[in-house]
């Protein structure tokens, strides 16, 4: 079991009223799964993904990640947990504009205190694997959207996470680029990486092994 959500509630108070963002979410993710979260705008997809990624908290319920109780451990411990096991991929890539491709890939390793030589080897490996060696000294602005997302995924993968969280990874891409990215996810999944993606598109959802549908914060 990779992770387990139990009766998760999340809400905000607005004008004396409690508005639920997530309502009684229950599900489990086993290693090697490829899950797609679907639903209309405002149904809580991204919120759920952020909760799973520990970037956001929740108000009620229990969350076990690799048998660690996320709801009760300290912030610092939690940061170590996601630093170690989770990689993020965003719709708008979120690469650092001031850094080159190579430096963007290197950044997560810096926070994990890898040695210089090790970092170099891992970055070179990743550049090789994604066929972007020739672009290693370019800045994000010099790349196409598909290429930027490729770098984004490479960055998420570089420290060998168990879980990849992808928030509409193809949302800013054209259909051909989108398809390539989805193929890549499928391939990664076959190599053993667990993936949870948020998507609007039925076609992309079909790449996954399981679909979770959300409406107004509730699983249906």
């Amino acid at each position: 079991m990779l992770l387990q959500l139990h009766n998760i509630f999340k809400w905000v108070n607005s004008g004396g009223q409690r508005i639920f963002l997530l309502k009684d979410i229950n599900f489990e993710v086993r290693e090697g799964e490829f899950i797609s979260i679907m639903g209309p705008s405002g149904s809580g997809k991204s919120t759920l993904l952020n909760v799973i990624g520990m970037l956001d908290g929740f108000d009620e319920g229990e969350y076990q990640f690799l048998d660690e109780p996320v709801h009760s451990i300290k912030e610092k411990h939690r940061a170590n947990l996601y630093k170690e096991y989770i990689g993020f991929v965003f719709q708008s890539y979120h690469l650092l504009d001031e850094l080159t491709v190579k430096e963007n890939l290197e950044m997560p390793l810096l926070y994990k205190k890898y040695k210089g030589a090790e970092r170099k080897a891992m970055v070179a490996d990743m550049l090789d694997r994604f066929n972007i060696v020739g672009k290693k000294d370019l800045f994000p602005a010099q790349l196409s959207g598909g290429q930027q997302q490729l770098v984004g995924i490479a960055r998420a993968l570089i420290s060998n996470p168990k879980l990849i969280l992808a928030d509409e990874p193809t949302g800013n891409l054209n259909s051909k680029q989108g398809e390539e990215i989805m193929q890549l996810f499928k391939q990664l999944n076959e190599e053993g990486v667990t993936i949870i993606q948020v998507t609007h598109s039925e076609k992309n959802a079909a790449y996954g092994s399981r679909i979770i549908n959300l409406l107004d914060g509730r699983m249906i």
Partner: protein
Amino acid sequence: MFKNYLKIAWRNLLKNKVFTTANLIGLSTAFAIAILLGMTAMFDLSFDQFHKKKDTVYQLYLSNQTPKGTTISVVNPIPLATALKEEVPGIKHIARSLSQDALITYQNKDFDLDAEYVDNDFFTLFSYPVIIGNTQEPIPNKNSIALSESTAKKIFGDGNAIGETIFLQQGREQVPFTVASILKDTPVNTSVDFDIVIPFESHREYLPNIGIWDSYNHLVYLELEEGVSLSQFEKNTRSFTNQHYENQIESMVRDGALPDTNGQYKQFHLLPYSDVAFVSYATGIAIVNRTFPYLILGIALLIIFIACANFINMNIALGEKRLKEIGMRKTLGAVKRQLFGQFWLESILIFVVSIVLGLIAAHLLLDPFKTLFNTQATLSNLSKPVILVGFFLSLLLITLIAGGYPALILSKLNAIRALKGKWEMGKNRLRNGLIVLQFVIAIVLISGTIVLHGQIQYMRNKDLGYNKEQVVSIPLNGKMDSYRVVQLLREELKNNPNILSVSGADNNLGRGRDGSLSTSKWRFDYKERSIGTNVLTVDHDYLKTLDIPLVSGRSFSKEYGADSLSIVINETMAKELNEKDPLSVKIQEDEATYTIIGVLKDYHFQNINREIEPLTLFMNTDWDLYYAYVKVSPAAIAKSYDAIKAAWGKVEPQAEFLGSFLDENVDRTFRREKTMATIITSGSVLGILLSCIGLFAMSMLVVTQRTKEIGVRKVIGASVSSITLLLTKDFLKLVGFAFLIAAPLAWYFLNNWLESYPFRITLSPLYFAMAGFLAMLIAFLTVGARTIRAASANPVKSLRTE
């Protein structure tokens, strides 16, 4: 990691060129000026601090109870030091010291030197090292002298000086002395600087006054035995004072003076030598005042503060642009500490670069600065370990506050919010607070500048009661008898139609090029009252030469023959005598009876920052003149000056001509005010400039932030002027608010400062209104330029980017 931070920092700095440049210019200028000002302040504070015994050596001063309050005198009678050491227990070493010019002749060449007449113990008390000669007794006998290194070189060239004989002009005689030692040159930061040291006993006034207790001319320094406290010593001196100053104390009692709390009319006190350069006795108690150097330091700190406030504001504002980076780094596992470290490092980077640039700039500006501010300070005044460590620590602290505060705010942000680029916090309050503070400082400094210049102008233009534009005063620094010199000058210039009159006196007006300043006082009994007056010995035509009008009576005149028992007094003196007809007054002293022959209108014979005191003019050829006065016609002033110089060359070919117009002399007396004005002016210019750099950057940011709003308003139909007003208003409000705080503050400080001048301008609200208006105008121009451009941009463009 560190490399990565540096890289990111570097690229960020390059990306935000405007802000980087604004910050670098602001901070480096601030540092450069702060370094220079700090150096000046440190130099001022270092005066006399090089003496090893500066805290255990004391200057002796005497407080006197008079009917008008307590006065303090530091000059002492000749027999005092010896008697004090013999009769009062607790003195380890005591030395007398008297500064005077000395004219030295060696092989028919004349040298005008700064002389110090001292006892040998002077060298035990003070750290003036001996290079060649006896270190304990550099002047072993009455006929020996010591020279400073550079003076010895000036007189003897590279030849041997020790054992040579030189002649010292004493009155009309030449007295031989043997050079016994060579001393190291006095450092620049000493209150007592000299070229030649002469035994105190060899002063011409020494023998005639050896038993006289009521003629004062020199300072006394002493060191106490171990275990003797100041209060104990002061107590010990009481019976001594009562015994030796008995006559004076009797007349004090008679005049109605009240004793001090210990029942004393005269009380000796000791002032630590380290305070001597900063003491003022004006109010009857010794006040050690280091305000001026601390004021300079304060201005330096204010300037740094303004630049740092800019830095903080820009950094916080720019943080908004970096939210994405922060969010991303957080999702990649960065913790608060790491982010904080990163942003702090960026601040340190900017500060280090600024400090290096500032140091270079300070170095380049050093020479013009030294001339402008009239200081001998060097950067080495700052290179002391304590200051360097302090500087380093304050650098860390400033970067921690200036860079760390934005860093702390940014690093605290929630990752998701940061990624979404949302940042709502009350940062405007801090920003506005800092801007207001900056302008408060700027407005206070600007008001200071305006008022200071007003006061200087006032002092310069004030009618001093004599003609300062047309009169040249010449120090009589030659060997010839002074009356003869004045007479020869008179004859030499007689046929020049532009020379109106020539006279002489024993004191200068203002401060001449010889730099010396003296006061002579005389105290006598009149109708059972003790009256004190300043005295001045003059030659014929003194009043005519200086255009000083008589109120009644007559001036000294050749027609009346011997006028040596006649005196002329000023109005204040006449008031002091309190007689209906001052011309009837006869003053009896010893065997002489003086008759008042005239009363002259009060004129400022002393510095203009003092009240006019009683003055009595004598004409007695037994007393030397020290200055010649020449009045020229207003027509050809420069030509006349050259004519006077030429005449001097004929009369006294050996002596240097140091003549100068009296208005220059008067200007020289407020050199201190001028230096202060220069410092405050440059401080205010820099202050307003830096504040505006900050304001400009902030207005740029606000405009960027509100681009969409501006677009929407324009589409709805707002005019360019209404939008400009809308954007500018917020900033001008801050400046207005700053004015409200600054005006009373400035009024308080300036009023306090002006109170030390008996003749001063009145503080009108206009000065402050002017300062406020100036600040407002400059701020408007700074912000307006940016906002008008934004307001007139095509709204379609600004909306499209959204």
